[in-house]
Structures are given as C-alpha cells and as structure tokens.
C-alpha cells in the first residue's frame, strides 16, 4: 500500500514534466489546446494532491508513501543507495502538497488569459510545478536540491518574458538571489555528506547521522547558517528579501501566485528538512538568531507595507512579513510553533495566491497598480472586492480564515519559548490590519473614480480559482483538526523540537 501510494507521488512529480514535454511538441499556434491540456493536467494534479493529503495517515509514522528507486549507487564515493529516487511525504509536505495542487490549478486557470507565447508559458510553468512537488517529496538530498533548483530556474524566463514593470531587472534579481541562496545549500550539502561519510545522499539516513552524532556538533553549527541563509532567501528571510517586492512587481499573475504561494514555502520547508531535521544541534544553536531575523522581517515587512503605493509591493512586503512568521514559528522549535509555521505556509500560500490573482485581474484591465489611482471599485467589481477582502482578512489573521489558525499556533509556540518575540509578532499582525484596511479604504471603497467605470468583474475562470482558494482558506480556518492532526506526529518527531 505504501509503495503503491509512492507511485502517486511519482505521478504527481512526473506528470508536469511529461506535460511540459508534450507541450514542447504542440505547435505554438495551438493555444487552446495548450490551455485545455494544462487545465486537465492541473485538475489531475489537484486530485492527486488532495489524495496525498487525505491519504496521509495522521496516526501513522511521520514518513509515509515512501518509494525508493536506486538511481546512482556503488560508483565513485557513492555507496549503497548513494543517490536514490527516494520519495515520501510527512505531515508537513502532505500539507504543502495540497497547497501546491490548489495553487497550481488556480494558476493554470489564471494563465488561460495569456496570449503571448502561451504554450511556452505552460511548459515553463509545469517544469516549475514539477520542481515544487519534487522538493516536497524528495527524501534524497541530491534530488531535493535537484528539484529545488528546478523550481527556481524557470522563473527567470517566466518573469522575463511574461512580466511587466521592470521585468528584466526583477527577473534577474530574483533568479540570482534565489540561486545565490542555493549556493549556501549546496555548500551545506557538501559539508554534510562529507562529514557523515556514508557515501549516501539519502535523507533519512543522513537525518539519523545528524542525530546520532555522526555529524559533529561543531560542523552542525558551522553548516546550519549556510542552509538557513540558502533556504532563507527563498523564504524571504530579512534582509535577503528584496527580490520579493521587485520580483512580484514584475512577475505575471500566475507566476506570482505560484511563486509567492508555493515557492517561498520551499525555502521554509528547506529549513525544516535541512536545518531542523538534518542538523538538530545546529538548529538549536542558531534558532535564536533566526527568531530575531524572522521577527524583524515580520515587523519590517508590515511597517514597510503601510506606505506602499503599489498593490504588488504591498503584497510583496506583506509576504515578507508573513514568511517572517513562518521563520519565527520554526525558530521556536516548539511543536505548536513549528506546526504553526507549517500551517502558515499553507495559509500564506493560498492567501497570497488569491491576492496576486486579484491584483493581476485588476492590472490586466487597468494597467496600473497605483493605489491612489483607484477608488470605489467595489461598485464595478463586487466579486473581486469580496474576494480581496477575504484574502485581506486572512492576511490580517481574522479567525475563521486560515491566517488565524496559523498565526495563533505560531504565537502560542513563540510565547511558550520567547514571550517578548511573541508580543512583537502579534504587534506585526496588528500592523497588518492597518495596511490592509488602508488599501481597502483607498481602493475598494469611497466614491467610484469614473475612470474605472468600465472595469469588469472576475471572469468565470478567475471566479473558480478564487473560490477554490477561498474554500481552502475557510477549510483551514474553520476546521483545524484535519490539518493539525496530520502535522502533529511529524512535528513531535522532529529532532530538537520540544513539547
């Protein structure tokens, strides 16, 4: 059963790649074919993701649905299972898989509108999605890094070709910063695999090595910053976050959705996989520093967002702030805090995806994202406004939506371990209310600026995507246990995480 389920993971991982391969041979003029095909792929992936999430046994072992294929072994320095295609999910990755499915599907629908080189877009998009799934599933350091990079690289072209506002700058900066971050991961991998001296990249094996002292405490402390900085760039760790505002400003809608929605989580996920699980002692040593950075990020993003004039900049900074929470949650090394971080990843994912979807929908019509250009558009775009308000409220941490569930756990965990930082984190949540409501007030409400009388509300496809995302938010907001139960076993079994 376990292995059969492993094939589900393999399918989710390979299907987008196959889709990209197939699309390679579709003529560029067959846009509709590419769209329908992609939509079907997206739907299948959504189904698979939901399956993975639901089939994950909350009460079982943390790692489930494992599948291990020998890949490269017994050559060079590699021993038995040196590099193997080892897939599996734990509670955290099961949750993030669900997130990926939802956001990817929504993104596919949103990309429907693209006319310019639509097919090429989908090719890159699917490669990216495959990278995301791969990173979440990989239980082999080699493949983890493989897919991690795979998820980052297509962004350059996705933003560079289909982006807007200073797209080349944004794309280049984003790509370079993210890949630059992965240098840290790379170095970390070298050091860890070497230090363990097992001739294998297999993560569970290395995790064990990290816990039973095969990787010395000194090395762990030395290497941990590499991993964290490496993953932290992608996670929007302050002060390495500046790709986020610019990158989001440049990126096309569905890329922003997937990027802010899922990709940033790869970074935080990496900190769990490589930081906490692989280097528990290093994590213990460094987590206070991460906590400080996360708190700074949370406050800094929120404060900077207060006076931004561009929608995407607000969301960009807000992402920095929210990913700051994730880092805070991880840094607590407390079950509730870490669970909160995982929940926040999901929450921020769907919420941000929705926000970017909406911004894109508006920008496509208005060709401006300057807040002060707008006013009263609730009159012409009620659905849009409702959706945005929901997203904004989730952002603010309103109970009943996913944001609260996540943030609450983070706060609880933080208060248990570092009360002062918990207070600061909550303060950031309060500031979030200020910038969100400011935007609501300026843009959505008030008298309608006649310039925007012709704006159209969400299209059916956008509505479907938005509803999907809102339902996800509500699901986590209203009924916690399906989410928390799946996390519980995994989180409590993380090394160094206290009860």
């Amino acid at each position, binding site marked *: 059963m376990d292995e059969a389920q492993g094939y589900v993971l393999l399918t989710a991982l390979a299907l987008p790649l196959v889709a990209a391969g197939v699309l390679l041979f579709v003529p560029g003029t067959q846009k509709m074919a590419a769209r329908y095909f992609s939509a079907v792929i997206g739907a299948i992936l959504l189904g698979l993701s939901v399956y993975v999430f639901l089939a994950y046994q909350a009460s079982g072992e943390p790692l489930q649905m494992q599948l291990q294929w020998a890949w490269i072994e017994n050559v060079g320095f590699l021993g038995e299972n040196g590099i193997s295609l080892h897939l599996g999910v734990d509670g955290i990755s099961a949750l993030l898989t669900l997130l990926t499915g939802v956001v990817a599907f929504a993104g596919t629908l949103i990309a429907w509108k693209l006319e310019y080189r639509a097919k090429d877009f989908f090719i890159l998009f699917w490669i990216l999605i495959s990278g995301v799934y791969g990173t979440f599933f990989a239980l082999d350091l080699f493949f983890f890094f493989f897919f991690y990079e795979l998820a980052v690289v297509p962004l350059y072209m996705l933003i560079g070709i289909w982006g807007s506002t200073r797209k080349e700058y944004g794309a280049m900066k984003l790509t370079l910063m993210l890949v630059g971050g992965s240098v840290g991961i790379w170095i970390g991998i070298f050091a860890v695999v070497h230090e363990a001296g097992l001739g294998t990249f297999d993560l569970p094996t290395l995790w064990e090595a990290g816990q039973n002292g095969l990787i010395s405490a000194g090395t762990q402390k030395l290497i941990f910053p590499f991993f964290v900085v490496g993953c932290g760039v992608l996670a929007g760790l302050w002060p390495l976050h*500046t790709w986020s505002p610019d990158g989001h400003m440049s990126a096309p809608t569905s890329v922003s959705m997937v990027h802010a929605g899922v990709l940033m989580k790869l970074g935080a996920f990496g900190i769990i996989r490589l930081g906490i699980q692989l280097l528990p002692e290093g994590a213990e040593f460094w987590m206070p520093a991460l906590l400080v950075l996360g708190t700074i990020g949370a406050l800094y993003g929120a404060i900077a967002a207060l006076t931004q004039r561009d929608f995407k900049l607000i969301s960009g900074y807000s992402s920095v702030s929210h990913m700051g929470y994730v880092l805070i949650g991880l840094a607590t090394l407390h079950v509730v805090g870490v669970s909160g971080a995982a929940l926040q990843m999901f929450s921020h994912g769907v919420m941000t995806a929705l926000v970017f979807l909406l911004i894109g929908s508006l920008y496509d019509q208005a060709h401006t994202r300057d807040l002060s250009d707008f006013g009263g558009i609730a009159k012409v775009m009620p659905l849009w406004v409702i959706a945005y308000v929901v997203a904004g409220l989730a952002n603010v941490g309103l109970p009943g939506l996913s944001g609260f569930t996540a943030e609450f756990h983070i706060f609880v965990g933080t208060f248990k371990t570092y009360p002062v930082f918990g207070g600061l984190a909550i303060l950031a949540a309060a500031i979030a209310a200020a910038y969100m409501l400011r935007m609501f007030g300026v843009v959505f*409400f008030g008298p309608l600026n006649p310039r925007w009388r012709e704006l159209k509300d969400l299209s059916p496809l956008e509505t479907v995507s938005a509803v999907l995302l809102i339902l996800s938010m509500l699901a986590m907001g209203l009924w916690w246990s399906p989410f928390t139960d799946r996390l519980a076993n995994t989180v409590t079994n993380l090394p160094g995480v206290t009860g």
Partner: protein
Amino acid sequence: MAEHAWILAAVPGIAFIVMAAFGRNLPRQGDWLAVLCAASIFALFFAVLANFLNLGESAWPVLNSIEWTAIGDFHLRMGIAVDPITIVMLAVITTVALMVNIFSVGYMKGEPRYWWYFAVLQLFVASMLMLVLADNLLLLYVAWELVGLSSFLLIGHYWERRSAVEAAKKAFITTRVGDVGLLIGIILFWDATGTFNILEITEYVEQGAIGDTRLFVTMMFILLGAMGKSAQLPFHVWLPDAMEGPTPVSALIHAATMVVAGVYLVARMLPVFELAGDALTVVLVVGLLTALFSGVVAFAQTDIKKVLAYSTVSQLGFMFVALGAGYVSAGMFHLFTHAFFKALLFLGAGAVIIGTHHHQEMGQLGGLWRKMPVTAATFLIGSLALAGLFPLAGFWSKDEILHAVEGVGSWAFFLLAIAAIMTAFYTTRLFVRTFLGKPQDEEVASHSREPGLVMTLPLVFLAFMSIVAGFFIFHGFGNALGFPGGFGEFLHGGKPFHVDWGLVGLSTALFVIGTFGGAWFYWNGRVDRSTVLAEWQPKVYEMIQRKFYFDDLYQFFIDRVVLGFSYLVSWFDRFAVNDTGVDGTASMTHYTGFLLKHLQTGRVPNYAMAIAVGVIALALVSLAVGG
C-alpha cells in the same frame, strides 16, 4: 437544550451563508429570512432558558465541548458554557437582535445592498452569540474578532461615503489594538495553565498557579482587549465615528451588544481579576474616567447619534466602574437594562432620521413630537431610563452601581455621581433639542412624519422593556418568572435585593439636578445653549468639541510617527538593503570584472608576463609554505 445552545449561534450563521450567497436573488432580498432567523433564535432562547432553569443551579454552568485539535501536549477543546451571565447576554442579544431586524426592514428599505446588510447582521448575531457561549478564551477571541468584522462591515455599509470607510477602518484598527492585547493575554494564560478553558483557568488561578506580577500583566492585556471593544478611554475614539453605519446597527452593535463584550469579558473573568492585585482598581479608574470624559464630550455634540454614542461610552464606563468595584451583578445589570433603553434610543434616533428624511443634526430638528408622537414618546421613555428616572430600568441599574462604588471610596462615588448628573443633563438636552420646542428648520419639519408600524413596534416593545427590565432586580419579579430570585441572586446567588431608599433619594436628586439643569439650559429659547460656553470660554469649548484632542493626537501619531517610520523603513529597504546591499553587491562584482578585464590587453608580452609572474608567485609561495 441548554447544552445545545450552540444552535442559537448556528442558526444565524447558516442564515448568513444562505443570505450572503443567495440573498440577492431571494424575494424581498431575503429580509424575511433575517427576521425569521432573529425570531427563531428569540424563541429558541426561551427554550434554552427554560431548560437552563429546569436543570437547576447545581447543573450550572451547562457545559458541552468537543476535542478540536491536538499537537503533542497542546490540546484544545472547543465548546460552550452556559451560566447565568451567558443567559443574561443571550437574552439581550436575542431580544435586541429581533427588534433591530424588524426595525431594519423599515429603516433600510430601498437602501443599497439591502440583502448584504441583513446577511452581515446575521453574521454579527451568530458571532455575538458564539462570543457569549464560548467556554474558552480562544473561541471567545474568535467570536470577538468576528463581531469586530461584522461591525466593520456594517459601519462601512455605505462605503461610497469616504467618511463611512474611514470610520469602519478606524473602528477595526482601534479595536484591533486592544485585540492584540487580548490575544497576548489569552496566550499568556495558556502559557501558565496549559488551557484556554475559562473555568479551568479560573481554578488554576485560584490555586495560585500564576505568579502575582505575571497574573497582573496578563490581566492588563485582557483588559486591553476589553477596553478596545468597549470603547473605554483611550480607545473610545472609534465608537462615535462608528455612527456612520446604519442606525439600527448602531443600536444593536454599538449600543446593546458588541460594545458590551468588553464588559462581559471582564465580568466573566472577574474572579481572576479579583486575584490579580490592583487589576480591578485599574478597571474602576478606566471606567470612571471614561464615564466622566464622554459625559463632558456628549455635551458639545450636535448630532443626535453622536450624543448617543458618547452616552454609550459613558454608560460602558459605568459598567466598568461596577466591575471595578467587584460587583458583577451591578455591571451586568446595567448592561442588561442599558441594552434595552439604549437600543430604544438608537432606534428612536433611526426613526427620527427616517422620519425627517435623513436629518440628524440637532440644529435642524426640534419640535418633532408633534409630527411623530410614538417615536417621541418612546424616545422620552428611553431618555428617562437613561437619565435614571425612578423606577425606570436605568434607575435601578445605576443605583446598583452607585451602591457598588460606595465601598470603594467617596472619591469614586463622588465622581460617578457627577457622571450621572451629566448623563441626565445631556439626555435632556438631546430630547429637548430634538423633539420639543419649535422646529429649527421648517423645511425639515414639514416633511417629517411618523415612520411605519414595522419601525414603531420595536420601539414600543423596547420602551416596554426599558420600563420593566429594571424590575428583574427584585426577588419577587424574578421568582415569578421562574428565576431563582432577582438578578443578583440569579447571577451569583447573592442576597435578595433590598431597596436602599437613601440611595434612591440621592439618585433621584442627581436625576433631578441633571434633568432640570438641562431643561433650564436648553428649554429657554430653544437654542443650543452650549454655545454660551463657546462664547464664555472658547478654548474650553473647543477642547470639548474636539473631544479633548484624542483624535488629533492619534492622527498625528499615525501620520507622523507610524507612517513616518514606515517611510523610513521603506526608504531603508530600497536604498540601504536593496540598492546598496543587493544591487551594490552585483555592481561590485560587475565592476571587479570590469577592472580585471583590462589586464587582458591582447598583447603577447603581457600574457607571457602573467604566466611568468604566476610561476614565480607559485614557486615562491610554495617554497615559503611547503619548503
């Protein structure tokens, strides 16, 4: 039934979903559904009440909870707890909600987003009921935020008006600041006790599980939340602005129910407060200051709703005072009676607004009693109840508070007495300037008329309640209705109430001073004599009119300090972090390459030089290091 009281919250919740999704397409945009919903919970409340009373005191509080989430040692149960305080709150909410729903059918007729209004109203009712039913602080917080959301949505109902949007924003953010405190307080409790359950927390605290300082700090955070929601000084600024919302909303949310959530919370946690050092004194002082402050400010307001709003703030201060003095029953009783007469007054104001086609400036009203007698009559009852006329509802509850404060100290009693006088004073002013005298604006007066039955009936009912609600304090009255005695006995099994006639006399004196002062001041010439002060002491008047500069101060703080800081951070982010740090690194790399490339001159001798230098360097370094 009592253990299934959650149904009370579920019904409007479902109604909200249905109406939000389909309200637009329903016949009459679904207002009947709203009324039906309100009526059914009103009815259900009695079922709950009956069951609750039947179960008897030994079964109180009635509990019902389910496992919600568990991660490691972190367990969370969600559930309801029904005890007398809850019952009181349920009574207030269901009753006023029904009245307001009915009233709104008339009031909101033809207004934009009619269906949406009713939908959100149901959301509010659901959240409010959840708030009072919650057996744990977390659920309470959830509901707390949701009522805030409903309030936000309803204040901003007329979002085409910039002022409404601003008011909604202000309300949300201001209360949010308090909510942060509440959340911190809740988590601090969990941190110390490992539970969110209010009863368990109380037990832990009584066992001394939390250190003194820590408990005090925690309670201050909790109090912060309560102050924010109940618009206590210095968080009061949002409530007057919240009058931008439709008037029935003001009645329900910003007078009768939501704003008293803070009072409810303090009442609920009072056993803990009592153990937390001087926490209660803080409550008392906050309430006292608020009561006085808003009493003064109300005096300079010209908008009838604003006057009522400040009055509400003031009355909430009264309740805080009562709680601060340690008298749950006094505070809750004032909450109970106040809900009726203040809702009545707001709905009355609504009737005036509808009747005069949206005029609510006192300067344009006057002499309305002729045009709308029912409204005037009920409004008068409400006013008198507020001012504390024996034996209307407000009298008894205020009397209780005065009685409660006696024990604290004469200074408190004295100040509260002044506040009570001011209450009577501005209430009189309000009534006189609105309904009596000659119409200030003939144009307005000529078009004024009594609103329809759908609006006057709730007024009448509430007027009735404003008269009788006070009697609940009597043992006999309660007993007759099946309660175990009067209000205080029901609430915490205290002694039966005995009228302290001395206090009655004093109260009445206060009432008389205030009322007649007001009447004297404003009756004569039917002009706004408040301007006299403006002439006499312009600075003082301006200070009062500007609400002691609270808003200006906050505005300044936000504009200059918060936003200034934000600009600073943004600037730092762009120039220091991004342009210097990130782009700077890139430029440096680029520039290094630029410098380096000039070594590549294209000339063979130079290339050979590089080789030779390289060799020598390698040789010398290796000799030095290895040799």
